């Protein structure tokens, strides 16, 4: 049984080509999160991240637990970083299990990236080709064919969905446009002050058909911190705790970018089925959704996975206006990764908490009490159900 809650959140400035050291960004986010919870550095006794310090793709993860423990001078009883796990959500899930079993009381979960600065320097996209050497592992079955980016893998899911369900670019575009509108009420968003129309969306250059430039998320520099506390330690902090009511990490099908039996769905389906099996709550109880949008097509797939609509109905659900701020299920209310910037799912978690604490200001959904967060795409997925106490 989980006995875990989110008690504080923090985010650095989000920027492009800031040339700021990653640890600077992380420190801003960490101090903000601790202040938000009403905790000090001495209270933090756990630290987790995903995927840990990683040099393969420029700026993707310059900091691991080691660097952050050292820089912040933390004394911890529990630490963990892993690249294998339920997607970008794994550090939060591991923290929830750590506090539920008494390994730690307050865990600082972080994600920090400098992809914009790192990739601007060499004009290099995040392409998994190593450093001129030979490749191995699962990418060897994709990359030699010129399937060099997740965009090209996601596009083949999107294309299949159009073929099977009659989904359209305009429906995907509706999600991109509404997220951009939401970003206009989020001062931290990369595209704050830069609205986008459907014509802008449809007129953008094509990346991998049917995904165009605005179907893709935006590499940025930024850091985000979420503090996960033991339920009994969460009660008397600065804010009402946000309970982690359930989480799902299952992989019950053959989950890869190329071998999954049903190419209209992804691992999110496994994770969501698992999550709902662990709670009495139902999709109808959910007020807002924060769904990983590395590419636009992930959003309808997550909507179906969580059961907000049936298989094949995700794009139409969007097209009918359900995911807009005024719709039945406001989704990616802060702009998501496509309009606020890529924080690898931590931005989604941050936004869900912002809404549940009623701090969304111009983008606040009235009386939001229950949220789902889905992180990951393709063979990676973690899902979480959050409730304001």
């Amino acid at each position, binding site marked *: 049984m989980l006995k875990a809650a989110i008690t504080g959140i923090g985010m650095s400035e989000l920027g492009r080509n800031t040339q700021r050291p990653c640890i600077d960004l992380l420190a801003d986010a960490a101090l903000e999160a601790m202040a938000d919870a009403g905790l000090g550095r001495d209270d933090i006794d756990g630290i987790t991240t995903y995927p840990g310090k990683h040099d393969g793709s420029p700026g993707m993860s310059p900091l691991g637990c080691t660097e952050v423990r050292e820089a912040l001078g933390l004394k911890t009883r529990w630490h963990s970083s892993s690249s294998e796990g339920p997607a970008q959500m794994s550090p939060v899930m591991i923290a929830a299990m750590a506090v539920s079993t008494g390994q730690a009381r307050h865990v600082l979960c972080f994600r920090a990236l400098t992809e914009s600065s790192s990739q601007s320097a060499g004009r290099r996209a995040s*392409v998994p080709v190593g450093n001129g050497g030979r*490749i191995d592992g699962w990418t060897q*079955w994709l*990359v030699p064919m010129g*399937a*060099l980016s997740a965009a090209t893998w996601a596009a083949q*899911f999107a294309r299949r969905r159009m073929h099977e369900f009659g989904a359209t670019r305009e429906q995907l575009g509706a999600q991109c446009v509404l997220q951009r509108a939401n970003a206009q009420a989020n001062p931290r968003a990369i595209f704050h002050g830069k609205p986008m129309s459907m014509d802008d969306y449809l007129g953008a250059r094509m990346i991998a058909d049917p995904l165009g430039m605005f179907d893709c998320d935006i590499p940025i520099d930024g850091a985000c911190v979420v503090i996960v506390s033991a339920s009994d330690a969460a009660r008397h902090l600065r804010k009402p705790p946000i309970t982690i009511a359930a989480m799902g990490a299952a992989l019950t099908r053959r989950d890869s970018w190329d071998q999954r039996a049903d190419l209209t769905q992804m691992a999110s389906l496994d994770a969501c089925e698992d999550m709902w099996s662990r709670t009495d709550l139902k999709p109808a109880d959910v007020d807002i959704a924060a769904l990983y949008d590395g590419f636009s097509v992930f959003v309808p797939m997550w909507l179906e996975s969580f059961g907000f609509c049936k298989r094949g109905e995700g794009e139409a659900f969007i097209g009918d206006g359900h995911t807009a701020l005024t719709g039945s299920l406001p989704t990616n209310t802060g702009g998501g990764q496509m309009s606020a910037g890529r924080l690898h799912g931590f931005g989604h978690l941050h936004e869900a908490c912002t809404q549940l604490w009623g701090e969304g200001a111009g983008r606040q959904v009235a009386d939001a009490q229950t949220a789902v967060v889905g992180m990951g795409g393709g063979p990676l997925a973690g899902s979480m159900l959050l409730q304001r106490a």
Partner: protein
Amino acid sequence: MNTHAPRPLPALTSDTMPFWTAGAHGQLLIQQCCLCSYFIHPPTGFCPECENSETVYTAVSGRGFVETFTVNYKIWMPGLPDRYVLALVRLAEQNDVRLATNIVGCDPASVRFDMPVKVQFEQTGDLWIPLFAPDPVP
């Protein structure tokens, strides 16, 4: 993407070498279970159907069908063509074996779902990459 585009290449290991090099003899080899004949791809050396660890690389017909595809426009690395077709092809012998590949020998705009295709190989260094073209005699 059919003429000497730059391709990041896999490391050749004893496990994968038959797949990546049999194109030199015009053959598409897929790992197969010696007991139940299930095709295993990507190759793992273990049959998930019958738990057997004896496997052999077997030549298949090289015929298949387009399961899904995309036309790529973004130049991810220098030297790539302006546009090329990426696809997942399911093999005629076993429909849950899919190869990520390029569809070549036709206008990218002419590629269709479930289109019959046949393998051909492009030599790049010490590898023969399996690509697929429309199959005139499906």
